[in-house]
């Protein structure tokens, strides 16, 4: 009687062993099949990289950041691929735009940046978008008439951008762009980009920064129509650029008074 019993036992044990072997395939630890994450040149892959690396300055969804919006089809169409690539790889020297490529440890390699530029165009670009004025994006250092720039500034910009702007007074939010403190922080390219493409994502009441197509305001706040020409933009940039070296004016807080406060 013992023999058949043992056979049954063996059979049961074998079944259990086989079943648990089969069950092994369903153990909770078994990793799920890997789904390849989206690559950078797709809209989804691009968005991930953007929110990791750009959103802090250029805005969560490509607008409404302290740096200029990237979700701007007209702007994207105007910037050539290689210029965009260079800015991303090396940053813009002397400004707050960091580089993401090159030799540093966390660097992103060139192929990835190229893919990213492609992805950005797929997500936010539109090849046929053109600025009404068709003024080239790139700033070309060269001959420009700063004096004419100054006249233009007086005729079209100064009522929104008064030359002396009380810090923090929100009377004129556009603020002074002639302030050397400000000018020393931005590149000529930034000045040009701002003038050519304007900026309308921050809802700057009472009026947004117009593109080169206008309309502008004269010294008395009256509307001035008429687009700027390419050389007008050059002259304006030359004028603003020349103001960088003017002396810095510090706010007149008295050191003595503030020393008392901290005590």
């Amino acid at each position, binding site marked *: 009687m013992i023999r058949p019993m043992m056979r049954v036992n063996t059979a049961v044990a074998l079944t259990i062993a086989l079943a648990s072997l089969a069950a092994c395939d369903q153990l909770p*630890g078994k990793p799920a099949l890997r789904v390849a994450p989206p690559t950078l040149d797709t809209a989804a892959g691009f968005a991930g990289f953007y929110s990791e690396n750009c959103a802090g300055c250029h805005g969560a969804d490509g607008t409404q950041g302290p740096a200029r919006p990237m979700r701007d089809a007209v702007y994207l169409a105007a910037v050539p691929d290689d210029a965009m690539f260079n800015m991303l790889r090396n940053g813009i020297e002397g400004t707050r735009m960091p580089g993401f490529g090159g030799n540093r440890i966390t660097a992103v390699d060139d192929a990835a940046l190229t893919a990213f530029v492609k992805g950005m165009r797929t997500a936010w670009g539109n090849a046929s978008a053109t600025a009404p004025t068709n003024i080239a994006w790139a700033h070309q250092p060269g001959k420009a008439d700063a004096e004419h720039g100054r006249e233009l500034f007086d005729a079209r910009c100064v009522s929104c951008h008064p030359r002396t702007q009380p810090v*923090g007074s929100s009377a004129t939010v556009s603020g*002074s762009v002639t302030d050397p403190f400000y000018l020393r922080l931005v590149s000529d390219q930034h000045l040009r980009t701002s003038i050519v493409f304007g900026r309308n994502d921050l809802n700057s009441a009472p009026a947004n920064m117009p593109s080169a197509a206008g309309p502008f305001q004269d010294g008395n706040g009256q509307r001035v129509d008429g687009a700027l020409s390419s050389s007008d933009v050059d002259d304006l940039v030359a004028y603003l650029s020349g103001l960088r070296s003017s002396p810095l*004016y510090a706010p007149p807080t008295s050191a003595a008074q503030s020393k008392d406060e901290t005590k």
Partner: protein
Amino acid sequence: MSEMTPKRAIFDALNWLDERTGLFWILRRSVFHRVPRNAKWWYVFGSATMMFFTIQIVTGIVLAMFYAPSAAQAYESLVYINEQVPFGWMLRAMHGWSSNAMCLMMLVHMMQVFLHGSYKYPRELTWVAGVFLCLTTLGLAFTGQIMRWDADAYWGLGIGAAIMDRAPGIGNQLRAVMLGGPQISGATLSRFFALHVFILPGSAIALIGFHLYSVLRQGISEMPKAGEPVVPATYRKEYEERTHKTGVPFYPDAARRDMVFCGAALIVLIGIAAWFGPMGPGELPDPTIIEASPRPDGLFLWIYSALALLPPASETFLLLAVPPVAIAFLAAIPFIFNRGERAPSQRPVSVLIVVLLCTAIGVLTWLGMSSPWGPKMDAWTSTPTAVQYLQQRTPLELQGALEFQFAQCRNCHAIDDAGGQRGPDLTDVATRLSWDQLMRQIQQGGGNMPAYGKALSSSEMQALVAFLSTLDGGDLAATLPGALEQQPARDAVPQADANPAANSSR
């Protein structure tokens, strides 16, 4: 010559071998040597460490048959092991968890030896070998996580390289030695592969050999008793007498406990591996896909936290000077405290040290897991500022907001809860500090904040303070005369520019 039975043939062959190698003598000695009767469950951790090491060797060899140690294929080969090799994922899971278990057991073992003062005469070198084994094991764990060649591996390498970089004078060279070039590349992986499968396991085996040999030679220590200090002149004689009189053979008495404990540990390991599965590989190291928040494996989390919490000014010193000194001290312990009481009750300082270290590492690990406080290393590029703090701002104030990101203030300071939590939230800073106080805080630092005076140009300072002076917590009234009220009209005296050359040329 008697009749040749199979049994007899085997016996003869073994005898032949023993005569020439003495292997059985060694074996007999290790199996039946006498150990103190009172050496009970406290003594199982060393064996458990070794069991996990054996598992590492076995699973490691099998993994090495599938793993491709090249930058292009490493990751894919791990995915292949996970998905195609039968039970490959289980193999990886066992290797990964057993590595953690080995480190854990090793630390517990070390702690036990330290608390019981077993490192004292005559077991000094056993302890020293143990210290080196500890380093080797941690090295294996670190290089092992590099083998995954995913974003976490990159993180680990990046931190390692950054630490090397700080070595004065030879930083660059050290970094090049570590990475096999100026940056992380295929050469780095080859280098760490060689370390992980040849150099470190080889060293570990040699050290374990010596460690075990010394254990056999010196015998394991008895349970410490208060009032029975170690006196080198008489210790050995007394120990031998005692173990001879009251000791029990290692097998089966002590070995049984080892086996029970190791068996239980093995079952737990298999359970954990089956339940939690293999570690990683995480995100691809493909530079076109960027990992959000890489973290080191659990074992190194406390270092990660410590790095994040250290005041930056002291980091270089702490990173470069403290580990060598600490390790040298650890190895020197048996020579400094060579004799005397072994019982923990007579050595309160040692107990206190262990408790403090465990608490510190435990807390740091916990912080590393949650790390709500740590600098958010990527906040400066990834954390946007809510639009209400950007609307109606002047160009200079917007530049200040940019500088706030660019100078990585955001990694430690939040605005409206978004950003690092290491420094105070600055949403309403303008109601708390005046313009001058803001200036001074940035220039001179203070609290845990570094001084930025030398790092920022006067334009950058001006922009930053202009931006901060607009942060009024959504129209809160100033409690002090804050920067809001003080935002002065900027029309007065020219200020000497601290650093005109740096700013003026574009």
